């Protein structure tokens, strides 16, 4: 603290004011506590970063070499036993992307329209009920969502465990993410835009469709991408509903389709070095996919016309 010396009694001829109160310096114990707190906060941040760096470094060290081989990106594991080195992850990457795409296609219309309902239409008790149910969906554990689809798909209808059933469970997990992020974006669209549109005689549905949604578009896309990134790493529904296979399967209703999480899960139980290497390779591939989606989402968010 710099001290300000007052020149007293030299101006205006007014009587000299009482001497300014002399501020005693911070007492030692207060200064110590302040510094201690500062050290604790910096320390906490460092502790928080350690596991992240540790996981990333070990995954890259152990799985990086797998990803540098071209066959990782071109081959499946067809005909490769757990003792043999080689083969790729195409079947699993493809499966993960198919799951993500189908889940997105199913949940985006419902999620966005629910958000439109909550922001533009919903009033009163029904809207509150919908909002409450979205909250419940947000908190639902992925294993419970998987169990519900299992109870519906397998035990009630008697169908096989297939990729499409996994997507249904993932839809349950993705809808609330999309609803909440879309809602945020729609709320940011200035009301003047809506009113200007109404004043021109544009009906409400066209205003929403042609003015509100396009304005919020990139923000909505960001929310969707972050939602996809979230469900991509979900393993519990795959474990319950999607058996692993080593070959390329693209039929959603075939009895099994490989994904990166199930590839990790399968290989880790096989306790042999080639299989363990594949675990790290698949883990790194999955992390990269999720990171890429996150980055892409945030990048698109930068160009949003409405800013959060």
């Amino acid at each position: 603290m710099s001290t300000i010396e007052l020149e007293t009694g030299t101006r205006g001829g007014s009587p000299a004011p009482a001497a300014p109160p002399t501020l005693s310096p911070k007492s030692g114990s207060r200064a110590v506590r302040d510094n201690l707190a500062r050290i604790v906060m910096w320390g906490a941040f460092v502790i928080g970063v350690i596991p992240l760096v540790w996981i990333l470094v070990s995954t890259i060290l152990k799985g990086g070499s797998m990803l540098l081989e071209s066959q990782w990106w071109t081959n499946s594991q067809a005909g490769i036993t757990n003792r043999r080195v080689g083969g790729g992850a195409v079947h699993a990457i493809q499966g993960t992307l198919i799951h993500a795409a189908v889940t997105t296609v199913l949940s985006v219309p419902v999620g966005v329209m629910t958000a439109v309902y909550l922001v533009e239409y919903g009033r009163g008790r029904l809207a509150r009920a919908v909002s409450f149910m979205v909250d419940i969906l947000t908190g639902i554990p992925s294993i419970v969502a998987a169990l519900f689809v299992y109870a519906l798909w397998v035990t009630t209808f008697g169908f096989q465990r297939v990729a499409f059933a996994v997507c249904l469970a993932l839809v349950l997990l993705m809808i609330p993410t999309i609803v909440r992020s879309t809602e945020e974006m729609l709320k940011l669209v200035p009301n003047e835009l809506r009113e200007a549109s109404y004043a021109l005689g544009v009906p409400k549905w066209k205003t929403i469709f042609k003015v509100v949604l396009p304005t919020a578009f990139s923000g909505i896309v960001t929310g969707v991408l972050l939602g996809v990134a979230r469900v991509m790493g979900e393993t519990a529904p795959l474990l319950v509903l999607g058996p692993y296979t080593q070959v390329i399967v693209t039929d959603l209703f075939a009895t099994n389709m490989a994904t990166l999480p199930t590839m990790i899960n399968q290989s880790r139980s096989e306790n042999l070095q080639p299989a363990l290497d594949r675990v790290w390779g698949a883990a790194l591939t999955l992390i990269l996919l999720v990171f890429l989606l996150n980055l892409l989402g945030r990048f698109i968010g930068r160009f949003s016309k409405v800013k959060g």
Partner: protein
Amino acid sequence: MSTSITGRSAVDELPGPDGRSPLAGDRAGTGRLGDRLFGGAATASGLLVIALVTLVGVFLVAQAIPALQANQANFLTSREWATAGTSPRFGIVDLLWATVVTSVIAMAIAVPLGVAIALFITQYAPTWLSRPAAATIDLLAAVPSIVFGFWGLTIAGQYFEPVAGVIDAALGWIPFFAESEGGPSAKSTLAFAGVILAIMVLPIVTAISREVFAQVPTAHKEGALALGATQWEMIRTAVLPFGKPGVISAAMLGLGRALGETLAVTILLSALNDGAPFSSSIFNGGATFASKIALGIQEANTATSTGALIAAGLVLFVLTFVVNAIARVVIERRKAFSE
């Protein structure tokens, strides 16, 4: 972009002075076909969400009931889990214990750490660092849970052995912290599963706390500083009291996540032997609701064994629902005060 995790919905906002909600445009609907179709589709989506949640509840209850009726033991007080055969006996005590212990350990680590990191990001970090720091912690949320589990088991777990030894030596006279002879290795215990869960919920706790701490009015902070408070005293008297409800709800949402976390726990925990005596130690194996379901559902081949797992899932559903509801109520209260 600040996407709110606490998820405050548009319908929760207070109406304006004229009694209408901010984005109403009430009379803009023309009643023409397009309006009716679009509005109808929006309402139908909302109703679909309600129907989905209701269906989840109904299906779980409907399929749990037959198994519960066939159950020869008390579902709420039994420690057994034998669902094969004609006289199944199963109860949730062990599952509940493992679930609660791992989640409580996770919270005991993640909440103080998350709050400290949030304070660091909002109050201490130099401006150039605070955004990257926040993004870094958020990145933790992008690591899939199965990777956390495998990393914990094969790499980080061995470093937990000495830590467990220290805890046992210092606090082992309390049964809760005692390592047992012939118990599982430290990386397969409830304690280590709790540590891994703590890392996994850290981004949630940090993100929400950060959001609230950033909203502390500058006037409060400057007022405290003007009265001669040090930075830490300013945080204690202005930032923390303002952020308290937010931190509580952050902890609750994190707890909800920890309770239902499946794969990391499934990979780490070693199963108890059948008929093993109950142990109150955190250095013991076990199974949580989620890991029991994940492991059991693949082998479940009778209606009873499936039903028993679905009943366990129902308990987990109710548990997370209650925890999330508490978080929600706390957030609502904060809103009422801050407006």
